[in-house]
């Protein structure tokens, strides 16, 4: 009974929109007409077979997700290991590395867009001053470079988040086990491999799941930096769903893209979490 108000709000703002998007994916609706025409699987057929952008967005989302579960967590882990030592200025350093996380992604996008300006941007100036002007790429305008340029900005912003989770995880590593391993003659690498890393397993699971989810729904930083361009080459599934719905105003196709994205997310996250939970239970 006590849960009822929360459940009602959750149903209204989370469950019902989810159901509505699912229904919309089988309909043709432009946001203006009162009637939504039932079109069966036509929206899915269109995005899978006739849409010249869907598969580009799909490929980019896959690349982005793979990079996102590798680079920010690995860098975050190294930063956490470093900042877990007794360093001078450890607290300010932790704050500095975490700072980008609290900046709105759209502000990060604006900032990095200026740094990437091909004429006056920071990177262009640095390379020009170093005599490497001929190596300056069109950071956000070259199809082969743009996605990775955005990803660098994303890493800058998100690495602090992984770092904080790993720092929290490192506090749970039993100090006596490390001391025991050291007495047994284990070097730093062995201690990390056989004591620290196994203790961090639950944290790693959380970081990877959160990284996967946030990367699959990557939107704001791409929207702010390139809007999916040039020539839709940095489109992501989440952004393409938005573009179809809120810029082209084809809510049916936008919803179909959203449902595909949700399905992919569930297909990755649910088995991984269940496997990881089983592994933890076995270990215990």
């Amino acid at each position, binding site marked *: 009974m006590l849960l009822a108000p929360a459940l009602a709000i959750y149903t209204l703002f989370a469950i019902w929109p989810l159901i509505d998007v699912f229904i919309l994916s089988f309909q043709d609706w432009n946001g*203006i007409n009162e009637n939504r025409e039932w079109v069966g699987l036509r929206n899915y057929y269109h995005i899978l077979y006739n849409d010249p*952008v869907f598969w580009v967005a799909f490929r980019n989302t896959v690349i982005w997700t793979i990079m996102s579960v590798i680079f920010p967590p690995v860098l975050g882990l190294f930063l956490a290991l470093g900042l877990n030592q007794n360093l001078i200025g450890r607290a300010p350093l932790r704050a500095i590395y975490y700072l980008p996380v609290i900046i709105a992604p759209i502000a990060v996008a604006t900032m990095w867009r200026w740094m990437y300006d091909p004429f006056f941007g920071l990177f262009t100036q640095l390379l020009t001053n170093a005599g490497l002007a001929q190596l300056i790429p069109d950071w956000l*305008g070259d*199809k082969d470079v743009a996605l990775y340029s955005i990803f660098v900005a994303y890493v800058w912003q998100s690495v602090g988040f992984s770092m904080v989770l790993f720092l929290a995880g490192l506090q749970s590593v039993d100090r006596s086990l490390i001391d025991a391993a050291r007495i047994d003659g284990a070097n730093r690498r062995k201690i990390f491999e056989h004591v620290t890393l196994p203790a961090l397993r639950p944290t790693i699971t959380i970081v990877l799941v959160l990284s996967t989810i946030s990367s699959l729904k990557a939107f704001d930083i791409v929207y702010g930096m390139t809007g999916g361009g*040039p*020539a*839709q080459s940095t489109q992501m599934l989440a952004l393409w769903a938005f573009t179809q719905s*809120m810029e*082209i105003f084809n809510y049916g196709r936008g919803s179909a893209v959203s449902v595909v994205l949700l399905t992919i997310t569930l297909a990755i996250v649910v088995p991984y979490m269940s496997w990881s939970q089983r592994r933890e239970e076995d270990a215990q």
Partner: protein
Amino acid sequence: MKLKTTLCSSICAFLATGVTASAEGLTIWTINYTSDKQVSALTAAEAEFEKLNPGVDVEIVMRGTDEHKTALRVASGSDTGPDIYAYWAGLGLGGEYVQAGMSTDLSSYYESYGWGDRLTGPSLAFSEAFAEGKHGIPFRFSGEVVYYNKGLFEKAGIEGEPETYEDLKAAAVALKEQGIPAFTFGGTVNWHVMRLMDVILETTCGAEKHDALMAMELDWATEPCALEAFTEMKWWTDEHFLKPFMGIDNRQATTLWFGDRAAMMLEGDWHVPTIDENSDMSKYGMFAFPTGTGRLYGFAEYMYISTKSDKADLAAKFLDMFTSDEFQAAHIGAFGALSVNKNVKQGDDALELHKEWLDVFAAADGTFVNGDQAFPLDVTTEYFRVINELASGELEPQAAADAMAAFISTR
């Protein structure tokens, strides 16, 4: 005594609040404008209407272009939204809302206020184009031409303004020989580079075929003039654009143009106040893109009264004031060289390039609209993509034409 004073103050405050609460609100949604003069004109409209109509509270909400489009679409699915909304008048934009019944038929207001007699013919062309009756009222009619840097033209030995497309290409080659890129465009906003494709299509296809292509009545893949247009477009983007351009927007391109980094820009008459506010106008000249058809490249912006508004009379009164002789004369040049009010003309103190614009408008033999106004939104998105792919060297002209045709046939 103190209690009485407090009580009296409370009652007065309550009454004052009551008076404020009963003020009639009029909400207008429009896009952000870049020039200070344009923003000032809108602010003045708000103040003046409130002054003329005591008790009316006008709220003008300005948003970025995409945000404005999205907000309007979201509002159209709900019971809230503006009383008046500003929108581009083409089929793919304002026309869609008219066809969907989101615009009030203003025929009775046209008659009672005499708007038909007051407003210019070309600007009114869209009011009856998409549904029965009269929808929206033009507040701005814009043309787009080539602005050029006189000094850079002189440096390249170009004498006189290009009168034919071949002249323009020869000028581009002469500029290149001096190491000067002919054009600067910003690729991130899509519609900036699109302008060149639009005028090239008009050049290679002529008026009739161009219109048929934009109406999707001709096959882009097999129509030779479409292929020729893509081939020409590639020539320009490969050889005569200030690069890189795909990673910058139109404002950055404008900054580079003011910095003498390229000779020409394809911009609208709204560009004149921008030049006036940022540079020395005597440095620049302008000429209509030599398409050979004589049609002016441009579009109209309208203010529509929403069918969801219960204040249509008040909204119409505002539109009447906004397009009145007095208001238009007071803000002449703010939204472009030409007022939509035929009784209002630029004076001798008009900006030099605005005076040239009057000749361009006078000489125009019809108009053709920007691609993103002619196409439905999904085709516009594909048109952008194809042009950008071509401009990036990722797509050959025939493949670009094929891509357009394929998209149109399967949409």
